[in-house]
Every structure is written in C-alpha cells, then in structure tokens.
C-alpha cells in the first residue's frame, strides 16, 4: 500500500489524497502551532487559503498540506513548536499575552539595547515557521515567456466558462489553475458542472488548461508570472480574466481558531472528496443554500449533525432529523486542544452544544488580490471574485460574458463581516480582536497603519482571510472614510518560493569564440570574462609572458567589439561622436579612439581604422561592444546622420600575433608586404595569411611588434593552427589573460573599469592627448570644457614599488590615505614591481613618495617598459 513518511511513521494513502487528507485520516489534528501564541491549528479552509496547515514536504518548508498532492514515499514534517508540534512547551506564550502585546517587537527588549541581540535569536526561533533547507542549492526553475490573447486565472465555473467563450471567438486562450479544475470543490452540482466544462475544453485546440499552475501576481503590462511545477511562466496576455473565486468568510469569535472549527467548504471537501469524516458530532452554521448542501455531505461521511444554525429563510431546507436553530449566533468555541463545545446565543437564550466539529458557511470573501493589484484596463474579474455568493449559473454567465469581452462586471460588495468580542482576526500573525483594539487605542487608526503595526494581513494568506475584517474594524472606528479602506494589494498574491522568483535569472548564455575548443585542447584554463569564456592561461603564464617579450605569441582577441561604419555620412558620424581627430585619417592609418558620454566620462576605448572609400573599421573593448553599438546608433539617429553601423563582432575573429618575431612568422605564411613601410604603426592593411583574408592591424597594447589579424570567424581555427605550426621554429605559445594583464601594465595601459571609475574624464586618466579639443563638436565636449576649469583633484598614475606590490591596497603618505592601487605586478623584464593607481592631490599637489600597505613606492611616468615605443614600432 502507498504510504507517506510522517515524522517517522508510515501513513497510508488513498487515491486523490492530499498530504492533509491523509494525515487527517490517520488521526493528525494539530498541523501547526501559531506564530506568536503557539496555539494548535488544524485543517480549516482546505483550499490553500489559510496558513493553518503549513508543513515541510520533502525538505520544502511552507507547503500547504491541504492542497499538496500526497506522493508515494514523500516525507512530511511539521515545522512549528518546540520540542514538537504536538508537545510544544512554547504554548506557555498563549498565557503570557500581556508580555507579548500587539507590536511587542517595538516595545519589548528596547532597553537595554544589548538585550535585543539575544532576545531576537530566541524570538526568531520561537516563531512557528519552517526552517530553510540550508546547504542545499535552491531548485531554480527555468523561465519561459508565453504570449496569449486571453489568460484566465482560475479553473472554476466562471473561469472555464470564460475560457470556453473566449475560445469560441478563435482567440488563443490559456487557463491556469492552482490545482486540477474541480478537484478542490466540495461534491455537488458545482463540482459536477466544473468537471464537465473542463472535459469540454479538452477538445478545444485553441484553449490550453494548465493544471498545477499558480498565478502569483499581475504586473503592469499586464504581465502575469505563473509558477508551474517545473517552470516559471511569464505570461504576456492581451487580456486577463481573473476568476479566482472566493473563500468563505472567516468568522471571528473567541476560540475561532481551535482545531475542529472549519470553513463549511473545507469540511465538506474533506468529507466528500477524500471520504474522511472531520469528526463525530457537528454543529453547522449555514447562511446559504450551498451550506445546506454540506449537511448531506457530512452525513454521508458518517458525521452526526447535531444542529444547523440557519437564517429563517433556509430553515425549511434543513433535513428534518437535524435540529434547526433559527437566527442563532455563535458566541464562542470551547476546548483546550480541540473543539469540545460551541456556545450559542439562540432565541431561547444562551446554549452550549458539545461537539467536535463546527462548520461555518457565513458568506463569501472574494479572492480579489490579483484583481485589486492591477490597475490595468485589460484585467477584469468574473464569477465569485466580483459576485461573491453568486450562484453557479450566475458564475457561468459572468464568465461567458467576460470571455467574449462583454462589459465588465461591477464588483458586488460582499456582505459586511461581523466580529465577536474576541477571537483571531489574522491567523497568520496571531492578531486578535483585542490586539486590534489595543493598537487602535495606541493611535494606529487606519487600516494601512494597523496592518503595519500588527502585521495582520501580512502573513502567508496575504489577507485572504482577514483583509476585509481589518478594513471593517478600521471603518467602524474611523472618523474619515479613507481610514477603513482595504489595504493595498501587491504581488505575490500566493506563496512563492525563492527558487521560483529566481526562475530564469541564472540563465546566462556564455559567449564562445570560434577558437573555444582549440583553447580547450591546448590545456587552457577557460573562465568567464564579462559575458565571454576566455583562456586565462595555458598552464604557464610566465612562459607565455616570455614568449611575447622574447619570441612570438598568439592571443585570441575575437572578443573585441568590431564595427564597420559606412554610408554617405560615415566620416560625419565618427567625427561628431568621438573626441578623436578623424578627418585627417588617410586610408591605411589607424588611431587610438576614446568614446565619451555627454558628461565627458570615458565609456570605452578602442581603435579607429580608415578604410578606402570613406568607410571606417572600429574596435572597442570586449565588454563595451554592445554599448559602443548602441551609442553609435543613438547619435546617428539623433543627429540625423546617414551612416550604417554594422556590428561585426560575431562575424569576425581576431588573433593578435605579438613578439619580436611576429613579422618573421607572418612572412612564412604570406606573400604580402608586411614591412614597416607597408603597414606602418599605427596602421593596417588587407593581407592574406595562410590563405585566409585578414585585415592586419598594427596595435601596441602589449608593447611588442604586433599584428591583429581580423578575419572571417569560419577561418579562425585554420588560421590559428597554421600560425602555431609555423611558429614552432620560434617555440611559439599562445598567451592568456593572465599574461596579458602584466604585459599591458608594463606599458602603463589601463583596463577600463578596473583602473578607472565611471566618472573619469580623459585628463584624469592621462589620456588628454587622445582628445582633439581643436576640432569641432563631439559628444562630451561641453562637459570637458567645463571640467577643464576645475582644479585637478585626482588622477591615475604609474607606480614603481620597492617590494612585492599588492593590488587594491590604499596608497598613503604618512598616515593619510591619498589613493589606491588598481593594478600591479612584478615585472620580469624590469626586475621590479610596477602598477597603476589613483592619487588625490594634497594641498594642491600630487604626492610622489608613497607607501602601499607598508611597501614603499613612488610615482613614475608610464610606460615602464620601452618608453620610446621602439619595439612596437619595429
């Protein structure tokens, strides 16, 4: 026989069981201990609305036992109370109300201040909530966008009718339901009708019913996130029909939270759907025809109904073998750990009836959270959510009208809620009528601040049970009408797991260059660099460094941003956007390029190459490619400049061939003239290397003779392989990002974002030479002019260290912090430590003798290595 493991005991299952129904059948009555007072709480709503049955299922805390399907072999644990939910010594707090007044968080342990640190730990432990599974990675669901014409939330009579009607117009319709349509409804005509409607929709191809999918919010747009069993759906519907129905009104009287007190539909569902008798002897309170129907359901499950409390109009409908109490009122539920008796005021006076079940069908509370949180005109309600207490026929008609987009239903005001002398208004946070009165007396006199002070409506049920009570309480006492309004509804409307919210956020698609597998085969350590996966080293970064400085080396620089600027006004675009002088750039020449924003701050840097026929080829940093493209397109659009911007980053590969023998290596593979006269530094030429057409660009980042070979991506592997093979003569080896970091630092070249801050303008970085202030207007010009008038307070400088330097440490003069080391390392070529760092001026001057975490250093000019640049110009 199928079983679940409940706290070490085997609990048998029957078909269709939920965790709650199986446990109840096995005799479990206390499912949780309440948050503050540790009162016993048991099954109550059976629809996933109330917080009374939150248990841990297979390590997942906060599962609602009443609606969680019981799966063979599942382990179920109760999560509140100490040492156990059944024997909870903390129940003493139930008798210590005066030490835990409403808002006690703000009052108790305020003084002495140190006490709170200890008290908080105890209080947090004492609160009856489950423990997060620590040390276990959250199960993040993938996320998917879904577009549909109509989204229906809720698979009851109204929702299904709406889906059917909308489907009939040919629209694409999605219907999501927390469970299986019909499964949560107590037996009777409504359940039969809903099951029949659901079956009808099975045959309609343009209507999809998603069972087990919970809509958790309605955001602007509208966008409706729906949590399914295996994924998070972000639904982008043309229209939303909210048909979430209603939960029965939570009645407030002393003892209203005792196990044994039920919402009418809850008891009927347990009895009728799962065949479990809620108890032996029942008192039924019913204000509606539906409530009368439950009498038969309970009876069939073997419950003796002692009395039915009904209004005069329904008295005739009660079967004759049940005592009818016309117009009676529940005063209190009595019992210590479970309901034992109900005290009623009747026409004949007060009366106590011994029983173990009290069911309450006293009105209908719309589950209108989703409806109220959306201000969008394309969201409407149908069925009980707008017509609380409506009949099955009314619900269907309202759904059908909403389905075809007919005039919106004006929400019908539900019956006002009445409250007894005491009892729990908010089950989630243990807020009683007395608590509300105390808070009111303290001056918290509107529903919104009552909510914040008492935390009523802020628990797992999100006000589904108590929202209207809180508003009614405030309205009754308030001087102004606004004070008694319902509190603002916000997502999420239903409990959501962190892993669900995080659905999809871990889906980062790594970018690979065409040489990714080649690097892997060569033993590279590949890792993230921005959005790319790049080689950091190939096993020996020092050896790679030496290959560049002494012989020849390769680096895959395909990640660089690569752009072709063409069209009638190509020159006008680059001239207007960049601070670099471009009008005198003749074909075959290149120039260092800075990209500024309007505030004059350096956004990116790269290289601009003038091509024949007025076109330009631009490179940007690997991380700045998208921003560079967006910027160029933006300015072209705003200035009305007619130029094409073509992002060639993905279509072109690039390999930097660097080292004293770079030209020798290329000459072996090419018939083209590669001499310094043919391709001057800084310049470029179209050449063929190993049969691959390349744009060879002379660059100087690593400070040696270098040719960046930009080529069709499809040829990357062939070109790389040919270079490696031909380079064997010079013991060639590729270098990764680790070697590059030191190589560029020796040249004093900065890494944007590592060595710079978002508000650095060129002068601060020592890049003033790259800005042509004597040319026409460019982006950021007016800001640079403004800043030129300001005294220089901070700048990036080259540093020479006396001993091993440390990155990130503060730069000091004496005991005064004046800067920070942003990059550094020991230079094998120079034999001492070099680096870059920030320096602030002190009394109008930049200090030059510094210490960095105890290591002496001084400000020196850059580049450190080959200051004349003879090597890279070779």
């Amino acid at each position, binding site marked *: 026989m199928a079983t679940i493991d409940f706290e070490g005991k085997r609990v048998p299952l029957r078909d269709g069981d939920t965790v709650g129904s199986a446990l109840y059948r096995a005799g479990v009555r206390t499912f949780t201990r309440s948050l503050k007072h540790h009162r016993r709480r048991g099954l109550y709503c059976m629809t996933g609305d109330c917080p009374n049955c939150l248990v841990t299922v297979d390590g997942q805390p906060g599962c609602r036992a009443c609606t969680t399907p019981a799966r063979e072999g599942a382990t179920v644990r109760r999560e509140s109370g100490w040492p156990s939910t059944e024997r909870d010594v903390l129940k003493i707090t139930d008798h210590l109300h005066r030490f835990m007044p409403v808002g006690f968080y703000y009052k108790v342990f305020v003084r002495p201040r140190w006490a709170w640190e200890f008290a908080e730990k105890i209080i947090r432990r004492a609160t009856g909530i489950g423990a997060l599974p620590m040390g276990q990675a959250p199960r993040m669901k993938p996320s998917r*966008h879904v577009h549909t014409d109509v989204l229906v939330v809720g698979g009851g009579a109204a929702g299904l009718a709406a889906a059917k009607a909308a489907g009939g117009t040919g629209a694409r319709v999605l219907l999501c339901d927390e469970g299986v349509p019909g499964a949560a409804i107590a037996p009777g005509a409504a359940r039969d009708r809903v099951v029949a409607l659901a079956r009808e929709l099975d045959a309609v191809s343009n209507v999809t019913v998603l069972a087990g999918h919970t809509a958790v919010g309605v*955001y*602007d*747009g*509208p*966008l409706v996130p729906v949590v399914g069993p295996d994924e998070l759906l*972000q639904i*982008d519907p043309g229209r939303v029909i909210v048909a979430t129905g209603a939960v029965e009104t939570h009645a407030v009287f002393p003892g209203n939270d005792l196990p044994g007190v039920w919402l009418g539909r809850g008891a009927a569902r347990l009895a009728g759907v799962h065949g479990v008798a809620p108890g032996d002897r029942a008192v039924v309170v019913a204000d509606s025809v539906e409530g009368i129907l439950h009498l038969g359901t309970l009876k069939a499950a073997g419950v003796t109904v002692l009395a039915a409390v009904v209004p005069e109009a329904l008295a005739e409908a009660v079967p004759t073998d049940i005592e009818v109490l016309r117009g009676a009122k529940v005063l209190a539920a009595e019992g210590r750990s479970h309901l034992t008796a109900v005290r009623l005021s009747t026409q004949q006076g007060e009366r106590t009836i011994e029983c173990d079940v009290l069911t309450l069908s006293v009105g209908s509370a719309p589950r209108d959270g989703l409806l109220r949180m959306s*201000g969008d005109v394309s969201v409407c309600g149908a069925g009980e959510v707008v017509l609380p207490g409506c009949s099955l026929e009314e619900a269907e008609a309202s759904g059908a009208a909403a389905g075809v987009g007919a005039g919106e239903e004006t929400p019908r005001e539900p019956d006002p809620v009445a409250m007894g002398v005491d009892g729990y208004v908010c089950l989630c946070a243990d807020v009683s009528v007395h608590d509300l009165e105390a808070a009111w007396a303290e001056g918290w006199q509107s529903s919104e601040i009552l909510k914040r002070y008492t935390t009523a409506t802020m628990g797992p049920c999100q006000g589904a049970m108590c929202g209207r009570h809180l508003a009614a309480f405030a309205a009754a006492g308030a001087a102004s009408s606004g004070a008694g309004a319902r509190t603002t509804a916000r997502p999420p409307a239903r409990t959501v797991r962190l892993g669900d919210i995080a659905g999809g956020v871990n889906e980062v698609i790594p970018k690979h260059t065409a040489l990714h597998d080649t690097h892997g085969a060569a033993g590279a350590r590949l890792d993230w660099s921005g959005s790319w996966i790049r080689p950091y080293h190939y096993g020996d970064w020092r050896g790679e460094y030496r290959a560049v400085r002494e012989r020849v080396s390769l680096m895959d620089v395909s990640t660089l941003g690569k752009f072709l600027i063409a069209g009638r006004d190509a020159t006008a675009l680059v001239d207007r956007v960049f601070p670099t002088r471009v009008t005198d750039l003749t074909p075959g020449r290149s120039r260092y390029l800075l990209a500024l924003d*309007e*505030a004059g701050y350096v956004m990116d840097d790269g290289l601009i190459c003038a091509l024949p026929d007025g076109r330009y080829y631009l490179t940007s940093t690997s991380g700045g490619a*998208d921003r560079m*493209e*967006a910027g160029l*397109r*933006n300015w072209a*659009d*705003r*200035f009305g400049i007619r130029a094409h911007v073509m992002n060639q980053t993905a279509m072109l590969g690039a390999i930097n061939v660097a080292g004293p023998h770079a030209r020798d290596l290329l000459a072996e593979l090419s018939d083209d003239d590669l001499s310094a006269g043919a391709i001057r530094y800084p310049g470029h030429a179209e050449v063929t290397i190993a049969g691959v057409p390349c744009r060879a660009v002379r660059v100087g980042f690593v400070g040696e003779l270098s040719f960046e070979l930009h080529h069709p991506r499809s040829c990357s592997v062939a070109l790389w392989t040919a270079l490696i093979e031909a380079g064997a003569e010079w013991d060639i080896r590729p270098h990764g990002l680790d070697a590059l970091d030191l190589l560029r630092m020796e040249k004093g070249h900065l890494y944007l974002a590592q060595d710079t801050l978002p508000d650095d303008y060129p002068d601060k970085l020592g890049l003033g030479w790259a800005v042509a202030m004597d040319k026409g*207007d460019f982006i950021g010009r*007016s*800001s640079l002019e*403004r800043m030129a008038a300001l005294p220089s307070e901070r700048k990036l400088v080259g540093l020479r260290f006396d001993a091993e330097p440390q990155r990130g440490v503060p730069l000091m003069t004496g005991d005064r912090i004046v800067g920070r080391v942003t990059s550094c390392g020991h230079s094998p070529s120079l034999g001492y430590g070099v680096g870059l760092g920030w320096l602030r001026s002190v009394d109008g001057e930049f200090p030059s003798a510094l210490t960095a975490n105890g290591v002496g250093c001084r400000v020196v000019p850059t580049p450190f290595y080959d200051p004349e640049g003879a090597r890279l110009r070779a």
Partner: protein
Amino acid sequence: MTIKIACPTCGPRPYTEFSFGGELRDLDAPTPHEDFVRVYLRENAPGPQDERWYHAFGCRRWFQVTRDTVTNRTGA
C-alpha cells in the same frame, strides 16, 4: 513589471527586449549653465515623459516613446 513598447519596426514588444535611453534631452544648450542642466539634471517627474528606447534584442533601432511614469502606459 512589464511595459509594452511599440517599436516602429517590430511592433509592440515587452520592454525586456529594449534598453532604456533616458529622458529625451536637447542635443545642446545655449549657455554653460543650461548645458550643465541638460547634461546632469533629470526631470524625473510623474506623468507623461518623452524617452529614448533602443530595441537591443530586436531590430536595434532607437526611437522615442511617450511613457506615463505613473501608470507605465506608453504611446502618445
């Protein structure tokens, strides 16, 4: 939250496909002070606002959108 943005090329698409380019501002200003205001200061006012949007995950076109900063409704 999702805002629908009507791209002139691709039609209405969810805002997650776009990059926000900020409030629409003048390209230059007659005086240094007005230029300072143009570059650094934003209106950030409730109500309809002209904005720049870029269809980054689409046609890569820039265009202007009027968005109500209170309701997030877009369009003229």
